[in-house]
């Protein structure tokens, strides 16, 4: 079964062709250099108008690369939310037009479920149940995947997303955007015990996160050091900050996995590419007897292949949408 999938929830316009929910035939993302060149410059990141300009070409490219035509498609999948309303609308309107024109079933997909499903593509034998940590610039979620379509949202951030804290601390350190990967790199050579930054665990029973206070603590540290004329060792700040974020993420993920009796923790979202996170998770893999899985880098970021995977699993479990499908910018996770 071939799914044509569209993802336009935020900055990226993406389209993919996915076979049986696990095999990617194509996965085109607008930020890829190829497309930039075709448009004669850099595609502005946030404008929904740019999604409109990009989308037809990206769909065409996705079909070409998969070596299929519209006639071969069996199912249309599209991100319904959460995301930016104008951006989502472009994707959903396009998907509906294709589904209507070709008389195909359509599935509205939760973007966060998509991030989880990126792991079904990467790990062909992965099956639910498992515990999932989803961390990116916009999202921080702890989720229990009970089946391919049943997800229980257990924890979320109450203020800043983990990836956002990375980007903002990077900006304060004078690093370029996106700052997450740079902090990860600097942290490798820095001393993670050089500066103590707070680990916010909230109430004992809570799986929620809070990173705003940590961000402020780093800013306060930098201000004070500047005022006192002290040298700032950027590598040490990066390493100490990153460790404070990771300690909380990793601790809560393992705590939830143990509570649920999961033998696997799956990481997803842009921050899943963070090597510090991967190695800290893996360092506990053996002693806890819990396997750690994560997707390759291209599947960590926003992409349509993961939406295609999620759409497929929803479809085979009978969760079909219809042409009244609409965007839900603050779509919750059920």
């Amino acid at each position: 079964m071939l799914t044509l999938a569209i993802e336009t929830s935020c900055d990226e316009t993406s389209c993919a062709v996915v076979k049986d929910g696990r095999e990617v035939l194509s996965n085109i993302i607008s930020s890829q250099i190829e497309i930039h060149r075709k448009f004669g410059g850099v595609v502005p990141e946030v404008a929904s108008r740019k999604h409109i300009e990009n989308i037809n070409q990206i769909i065409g490219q996705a079909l070409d690369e998969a070596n299929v035509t519209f006639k071969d498609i069996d199912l249309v999948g599209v991100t319904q939310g959460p995301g930016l309303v104008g951006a989502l609308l472009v994707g959903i309107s396009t998907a509906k037009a294709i589904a209507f024109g070709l008389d195909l079933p359509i599935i509205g997909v939760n973007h966060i479920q998509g991030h989880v499903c990126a792991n079904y593509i990467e790990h062909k034998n992965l099956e639910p149940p498992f515990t999932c940590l989803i961390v990116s610039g916009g999202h921080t979620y702890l989720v229990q995947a009970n089946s391919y379509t049943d997800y229980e949202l257990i924890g979320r951030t109450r203020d800043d997303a983990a990836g956002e804290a990375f980007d903002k601390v990077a900006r304060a350190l004078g690093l370029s955007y996106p700052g997450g990967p740079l902090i990860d790199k600097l942290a490798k050579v820095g001393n993670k015990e050089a500066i103590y930054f707070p680990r916010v665990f909230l109430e004992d029973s809570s799986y929620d996160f809070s990173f705003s206070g940590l961000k402020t603590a780093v800013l306060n540290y930098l201000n004070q050091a500047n005022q006192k004329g002290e040298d700032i060792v950027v590598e040490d700040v990066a390493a100490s900050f990153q460790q404070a974020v990771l300690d909380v993420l990793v601790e809560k993920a393992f705590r939830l996995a143990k509570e649920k009796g999961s033998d696997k923790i799956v990481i997803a979202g842009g921050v899943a590419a963070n090597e510090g996170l991967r190695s800290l998770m893996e360092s506990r893999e053996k002693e806890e007897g819990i396997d750690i899985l994560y997707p390759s880098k291209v599947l960590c970021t926003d992409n349509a292949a993961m939406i295609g995977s999620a759409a497929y699993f929803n479809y085979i479990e009978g969760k079909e949408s219809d042409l009244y499908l609409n965007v839900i910018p603050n779509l919750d996770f059920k």
Partner: protein
Amino acid sequence: MLEIRLKGLEETEKFGIKLGEVLQSGDIVCLNGELGAGKTTLTKSIGKGLGVEEYITSPTFALINEYEGRVRVYHFDVYRLENVDELYDLGFDEYFYGNGVSIVEWAEKIEKLLPKERIIINIDKGKTLDERIIVITGEGNRYKEIIKELNID
């Protein structure tokens, strides 16, 4: 102009709730202040005053978050935007001239696009880590009314 010194998180929250309670549909609140000044934290308590029950989280990545309180609440963050044109592409003006309360973080970056009648709150760090100095300015009748209500007691 109204200047208020808030000694800590608790006072900041009280102030935010009070402001939220007097806001009405159509009001635009601009929040300026450096990274970590407490713009999102203040928005959380303004939201409480507006009757929002959900957690208000940072809109930096999503650019706009919407909440349902006693009126609709739109929480913007233009931190990531490079130029005003991008805002036109996003249709932000439709929000500013529509129904609901708009709270805009980093509003100074998009001054040209904002309606004249608005409430501007600058947040500065005070002498201690948790102290904040808040300066409220603005234009229009609603600004005057709000200042008046905030000044009582």
